[in-house]
């Protein structure tokens, strides 16, 4: 037996984006917590793209913030360029995306961990979990580091990212490594397998970094940030910072030819890579093979920070050998003389089969073992952080003997993310997309606080002060919506002039102000001129009023869909049902249901292999059970 170095309530294994949120949430909820990283200088690293947010991901960051998480605040502090994507589309898909100073972000997050009450930060590789087993039920007892030191704890949260048996592949060379040249964690997987956890092998990759001094920007298109920066965190009203620029260029016919001529040297085609890579972020060679008729692909050149010349080539991820990479880069306009600082690589790693988890992110068969982030098969910093905060909260709630926090699909992208991972599992790294959220019109980035602050507060991560501010904002929105729905606008000269100015059909008799807001060419803002009684309101409140009034019809349609959805969600399925005994279920459904033990009929309906016909059978079964119990 090794040296017992300490006792904690909760151990977090890994200090990436999931681990940081998990550790902070647990510690803030009063749990004595320790978080381990193989290298403390890699805390909250961004080994891939130097940005946070984007479509669907921006929504995740704001949800994390509304629950009391850290990512949004840290991003705001280190934003070097910010943009709302999809600004020309509907508000449901506006997505905030910021270029981040990667190094400074890491330092901010590391310092936040260091300053946190109840939280210890330690450099160590965890190689083993300690547990007891009683009547086939395993319970977590502690962790062991690579030096043999033991830490006792009541719960463990696994947030190992891409470190487990990490293997980097560049062309025909492969070596064991974590991301960004950090040591991999080679031993923990074996312990997990011994505990009966099913693992899978996943793959992801990152493009090369080049020195900006070797780039000819005159051949590229400049990309500016938005004039007014929208912060991620609801605690920040506004954000002032000097913004950097990004650049746009494209692959050429020559690039494509180089890739085609060398495709046989790709490890993917040579069989060196066994992990399954994501479909949505294919390497450039994938794109060229699969979409052969596309003549060119966009490439964005993005700075990695203020204190560095390193530039990231977005869209150019590859695992071809270094000599081919150099040729490819040099075939792109503006990059003819580019000097590579870090080569592109693919990385393969162990992940768990996420269907082994409950919606709380605790393992179904192992008491007090939680897991979050890329180890669960997701991809992306924001997806990791979203799971991290939920795992941290639920580990804490579990130790307090409370019910877990489960965000459902109609409450947040976090809910969609976790439900998808846990219910359907994934065979490739899972990236959040707005199209995965069936109720995305309700899950907007602008109303994440309206959806989740209440929950964050009742869990205990939102301060009283912030909560009070939130309640005031909520009241202001309700009052103002009420007012514009009642307020009459008459067809006087001022009104007619305004309508004419915006090419809006003139009104013949009085109409409600809300009716005018609904017109596509008008908005709450525009109508201020003819609305003198308007109260002083913050821009966030105005935005809410505008969206809620303007899209009222659609919001109502979507709410009706949610109501349908909740019906099945409310039908709980007991863990004790033996599905092999239910007549009428198809064989595949029986097996899947018995393996998964879904928590509700709604969750059951989303398991692949369970058909709507099977759900009707289950409904008939549940109704029958109800009657039996009532003595029929």
């Amino acid at each position: 037996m090794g040296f017992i170095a300490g006792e904690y309530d909760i151990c977090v294994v890994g200090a990436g984006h999931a681990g940081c949120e998990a550790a902070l949430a647990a510690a803030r909820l009063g749990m004595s917590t320790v978080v381990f990283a193989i290298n403390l200088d890699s805390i909250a690293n961004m080994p891939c793209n130097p940005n946070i947010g984007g479509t669907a991901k921006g929504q995740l960051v704001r949800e994390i913030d509304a629950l009391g998480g850290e990512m949004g605040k840290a991003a705001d502090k280190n934003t070097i360029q910010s943009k709302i994507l999809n600004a020309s589309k509907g508000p449901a898909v506006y997505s905030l995306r910021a270029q981040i100073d990667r190094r400074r972000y890491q330092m901010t997050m590391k310092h936040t961990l260091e300053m946190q009450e109840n939280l210890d930060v330690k450099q160590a590789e965890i190689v083993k979990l300690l547990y007891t087993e009683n009547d086939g039920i395993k319970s977590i007892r502690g962790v062991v580091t690579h030096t043999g030191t033991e830490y006792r704890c009541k719960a463990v949260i696994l947030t190992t990212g891409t470190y487990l048996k990490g293997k980097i592949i560049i062309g025909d060379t492969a070596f064991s490594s974590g991301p960004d040249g950090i040591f991999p964690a080679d031993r923990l997987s074996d312990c997990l397998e011994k505990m009966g956890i099913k693992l899978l092998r996943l793959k992801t990759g990152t493009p090369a970094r080049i020195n900006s001094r070797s780039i000819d920007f005159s051949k590229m298109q400049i990309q500016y940030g938005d004039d007014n920066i929208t912060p991620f965190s609801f605690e920040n009203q506004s954000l002032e910072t000097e913004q950097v620029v990004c650049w746009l260029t494209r692959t050429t016919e020559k690039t494509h030819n180089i890739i085609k001529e060398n495709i046989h040297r790709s490890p993917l085609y040579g069989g060196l890579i066994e992990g399954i890579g994501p479909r949505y972020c294919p390497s450039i060679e994938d794109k060229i093979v699969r979409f052969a008729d596309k003549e060119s692909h966009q490439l964005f050149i993005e700075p990695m920070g203020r204190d560095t010349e390193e530039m990231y080539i977005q869209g150019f991820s590859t695992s071809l050998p270094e000599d081919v990479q150099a040729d490819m880069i040099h075939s792109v306009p503006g990059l003819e003389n580019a000097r590579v600082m870090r080569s592109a690589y693919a990385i393969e790693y162990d992940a768990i089969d996420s269907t082994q988890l409950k919606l709380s992110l605790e393992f179904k068969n192992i008491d007090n073992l939680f897991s979050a982030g890329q180890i669960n098969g997701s991809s992306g910093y924001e997806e990791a952080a979203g799971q991290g905060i939920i795992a941290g909260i639920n580990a804490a709630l579990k130790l307090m003997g409370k019910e877990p926090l489960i965000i459902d699909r109609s409450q947040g992208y976090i809910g969609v993310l976790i439900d998808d991972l846990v219910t359907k599992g994934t065979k490739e790294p899972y990236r959040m997309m707005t199209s995965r959220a069936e109720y995305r019109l309700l899950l907007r980035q602008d109303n994440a606080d309206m959806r989740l602050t209440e929950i964050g507060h009742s869990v205990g991560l939102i301060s009283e002060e912030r909560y009070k501010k939130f309640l005031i904002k909520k009241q202001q929105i309700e009052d103002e919506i009420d007012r514009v729905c009642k307020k009459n606008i008459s067809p006087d000269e001022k009104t007619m002039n305004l309508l004419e100015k915006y090419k809006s059909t003139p009104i013949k008799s009085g109409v409600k102000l809300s009716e005018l807001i609904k017109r596509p060419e008008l908005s709450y803002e525009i109508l201020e001129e003819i609305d003198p009684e308007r109260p002083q309101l913050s821009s966030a409140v105005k935005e809410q009023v505008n969206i809620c009034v303007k899209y009222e019809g659609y919001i109502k349609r979507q709410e009706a869909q949610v109501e349908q959805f909740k019906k099945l969600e409310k039908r709980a399925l007991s863990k004790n049902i033996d599905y092999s005994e239910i007549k009428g279920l198809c064989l595949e459904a029986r097996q899947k249901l018995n393996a998964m033990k879904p928590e509700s009929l709604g969750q059951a309906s989303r398991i692949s292999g369970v058909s709507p016909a099977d759900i009707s059978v289950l409904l008939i079964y549940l109704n029958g059970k109800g009657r039996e119990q009532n003595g029929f």
Partner: protein
Amino acid sequence: MISSKDTIAAISTAQGTGGIGIIRISGKNAVGTADGIFHGKTSVKDMDSHTIQYGKIKDTKTGEIIDEVMLTKMSAPATYTREDVIEINCHGNILIQRRILSLIYENGARPAEPGEFTKRAFLNGRIDLTQAEAVMDLINSKTEKSREAAVLQLSGKISGYINNIIEKLLNIMARIEVTVDYPEHDDEADTAVIAETELKEIYSDLSSAIESYDTGRLLKTGIQTTIVGKPNSGKSTLLNELAGYDRAIVTDIPGTTRDIVEENINIDGILLNLKDTAGIRRSEDVVEQIGIKLAMENIKTSDLVIYVISLSEEDPVDIHILEEIKDKKAIIFLNKEDLAKDGEADNIKEILKGYSLGENIKIVVSSLKREKGAEEIKKAIKDMFFSGNLSQNDQLIITAERHVNLIKQSQNAISDGIDSLLGGMPLDMLSVDIRNAAEYLGEIVGMSISENLIDKIFSSFCIGK
């Protein structure tokens, strides 16, 4: 509670038809039940699956022989219900069938609920929802054509059609989603234009499906047809001709028919619920007046009106009747050509033209005396309702009310989407409508759509990080 563990039995041929009756037993104990009453060379238990055997049905208590029958044994799972199934072919006499059935009940089966065999087939995964509904239609179908429509549905024709439209909707949605999730993606320019044209196409496609429901309903319940005209024009003669026997009284005295005479008629598999009415004229006779009033009322509720005009009469056209039938499907039947002056038929046609009658009105010239006109009117009816191509199996006909309602809801959702697109709503909002539209259609065939959508996005578009 109705348990699916029970063994069930019922007479499965329509009552009062045909020379034989079929009694069907399904469930775990079907074989045991049959052995309790059937006496053949071998016991039912020892019969091979999917074989047939001659034998007798005996009342074991009295020893009385009830009937001589053929018994078919089909073992699970290759049966309609995927359970053990026994079929007993007995005599058509309903009393005999009932005796046999009650013996079966005494031997461990219970009466089947209406549609319960089909429900079991569905629950046991043998058929999908639309197929189950088709079976119901099949059982209830009265004519060959309605049976055909049900068979088409059973063969998955409707599922195929619906799945095809869902596919199209998913395609539009996938296009929209790509523009949203990959804003840097550069080939998104005309997504809105494409969405608009395609949604409009789907909208009109669904319209024809909805229209076909009328056809489907007519096939199932029959075409409500009323024969009207002046007294003595030959209305009852026409009814008799179509019925193939003397259903109504025919005399040369005007005013013979005073009350409505009804007859169901099968024209090459199309069912007509034909009503012969009292000749319409000014009359002092109270009974006749009521008959005339009824005739006029019947016009309103009919799917088809046959207006019989006698060419032998002076000034034979009745404007009031024309007024009533103007906007309906109608056939103007110019009868008694044999008695008419030369060119009279063309003459009347010319006069009728002056009344600007709708497209749905056809004219047939006839002389029932000379056996002319019956075939022509049959053809006219077929053309009118089924455009003559019903026998070609490619025409989709919606027969279930559930389906047509869901299709209408889906169409409404699509029209919401088109409206907001034209009204300047952002493109991505449309996903709500398209999802609704697809969801409604998905309910018809029983499928969920979200997974398909994700696959679609990946398989059809080039997207990058």
